[in-house]
């Protein structure tokens, strides 16, 4: 019994230690292990093939564009500079990641509104006078 209660005391410490170790390792890691060119390429729609990005499409058009992206990345341009250079000759619709504009703001707002409305509805369903219970918690 004595070992058991000792274990009971040490156990939460082990949990915290493990959590800290995992969190620390992850935070210390390179957050973007993928190739930068690949990441940029995934944001641009391949003009010759519907729906696929230039990083994914095997078509020659896409591979040529990817070569250009690698070239620009090799010259030391930032992600945004590479994108700007490429998108100078293409319409915004070729971006798979829509930029925030007046026309696209709803795209971000609708899901956010659904989240807020849903959470509000759920909280409003809470009983106003909870039954007598000492550990009653009202948080989400």
């Amino acid at each position, binding site marked *: 019994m004595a070992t058991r209660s000792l274990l009971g005391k040490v*156990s939460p410490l082990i949990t915290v230690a*493990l959590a800290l170790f995992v969190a620390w390792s992850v935070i210390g890691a390179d957050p973007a292990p993928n190739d930068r060119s690949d990441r940029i390429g995934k944001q641009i729609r391949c003009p010759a093939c519907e729906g696929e990005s230039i990083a*994914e499409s*095997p078509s020659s058009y896409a*591979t040529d564009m990817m070569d250009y992206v690698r070239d620009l990345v090799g010259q030391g341009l930032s992600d945004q500079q590479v994108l700007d250079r490429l998108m100078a000759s293409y319409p915004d619709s070729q971006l798979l*990641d829509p930029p925030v504009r007046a026309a696209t703001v709803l*795209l971000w707002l609708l899901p956010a509104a659904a989240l807020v409305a849903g959470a509000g509805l759920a909280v409003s369903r*809470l009983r106003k006078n909870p039954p007598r219970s000492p550990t009653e918690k*009202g948080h989400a």
Partner: protein
Amino acid sequence: MLSLAGTLTVWAGLFGSGWLTIAAWHSARQSPAVTDPIPTLRRPLLIMVLAAVGSMAVLIAALLANDFTVSYVANHHSRHTPFPFNIATAWAALEGSIVLWGLVLAAYAYAVWRRVTTRQDRPDALDRGALAVIAAVGVFFFGLMVTVANPFEVCIEAAARSCSSSSPFPFSEAVGPSDGAGPNPLLQNHLLMAIHPPLLYLGYVGMTVPFAYGISALALRRPGARWLRRSGAWTRISWVFLTSGITLGAWWAYEVLGWGGYWAWDPVENASFMPWLIATAFLHSSLVQERRGMLEAWNFVLVIGAFSLTILGTFLTRSGVIASVHSFTQSAIGPALLGFLVLVVVGSFTLFAARATQISSPPRLESLSSREGGFLLNNLLLSVYAMVVLTGTLYPLVLQAFTGSEVGVGRPFFDRMTVPLSFALLLAMGLGPALPWRVARAKVVWPRVHLPLQIALGVGALVVMTTTRIGYVVLAVVAGSWVVAVAAHRLLSQARRAALARQTPVRKQLGRVIRSDRGFWGGQIAHAGVALVAIAIAATSNLGQSLDRVDMSPGDRIEFAGYELVHTGVATVRNPNRLTSSAQIQIWRNGQPQGWVEPSLSQFPALALPIATPGIHRSIREDLYLSLTRIDEQGVTLRAATAPLQWVLWLGGLTCAAGGFYSLVGRKRRRARFSQLPDAHPEG
């Protein structure tokens, strides 16, 4: 001849489903407590079912007989289409897929009828009303078949390899081409393509049944949990089909499309994923109503939403409204499907609003930290998830339709929005089953989750030390292990308690515990499947390596990701419907030969560009995925990629479906227990 037979079957289907709608609705309204086993409905139902089977049979017969006077055959079939793709052509194109819709719907109608006439308590108004709604949906689809999507039109003017003009009148003079161009080459490349669409349709169309019960309950003013209990098994059946259909669809894309991915957030993929999300939310929230009488109104919203999304999916897939890698069809059927969608949404929600006063104000939640609170969180996350997918899918269309301006919404948008939601769902999925109903006290919950949490973090630490420190992967592994560990811990502690009480070994109790509550444990199996899927997605999308383009001549040897690839030669095979050139690549690892793969390019006569078929070398550790972009006398241009734990994705998807199936098998016993509980709304 076959045109005439086919035309007769679709008209018979329209007649049968119309008759069934009227008769079933009439009997639902008239007799609240009749004792007859609805014999009056047998005849129209049989007409509808036989007509649906007949129309598919005639279509397949026309394909097998190479009857190019039938317009559908002329446009989508060729003499050289091999088995089984000649049969699969029957549902590969637009008109045929509508015939499949009708067939699956008729099958469900028959199955529901069988179920309500063979179970112990007699079919009541709720069942009849549901049959009426199913039949009404049938009226629409058979209506499509006799008008805008008639596969049995007679070809009256032939082009070289297709039909340029056709007539719906079966006695018109038939002039068919001597051969057709055949189905889309992508659709005759892999056996999965013959299986995946019917599975998906079984899932899509199956959502009609819970919808029909919901509408029947609303229209007949019979809210309460009875409609949920009647339709619960059907929701599960269609969910299992939908889950396996989506998994096999992703698998097909991976095996056939040759870009190495399995999910592109393509509108057609999204179209199948949205009903899945809402159906999943519905499965969970219906439990809350059955158990606690809460969320009654919300369940109506979800079931209407799930069905509407299947119609939206059919519209997106089959109207050609979106040109995407999947949209093989273009037609004038779009307005009809869109109109039906609007009718369903507006009609259902109007009915819902009209009955709102009769839907009881639910008992209030005692605490958000409870099993109910967990389900509420699950519903919130899944609904927002579906909202994200819906917005991202429709936004470009709506914006273009109304303002003419174009905007692209693709993977980066969907990933950014859904990845946090997915992780939140995963964490909630582990916690939820550990929470008791009503109020969860830390004293109760902590012992249930502490050890699993330690195990999950331990697995995470192991991954950090041995494999990777990439946050997404580590988090997916920790969250996935946590989900599995909570369920396993629960199982073990229940079995241990039972073993202690009965003085038997623990392992003998494991099976008994799992069998004792199939609904719960089936759910846990499905959760484990989702956990596997999450881990596999994180691994394949973060840990893979790729080599974009490399030219190889026969005899060349390259090194990639710890493999050595040796190009040993080229083989060309001429099939009746294609010319396939494949490269033989020998795979070596650590100085040991691992085998050959043969990525290939196929040239179809109907297409300018060749179709690439990848060659995949599989191992427990990862898939090595090779595809060609060029092949000729000088050699090949190769793309290579590794996909770690790719097989876990397929395993996870199928485990998820298996969990749903398991919860179905033993439902009868569970239902018997439920029916002893007093109904929230006693009828009569």
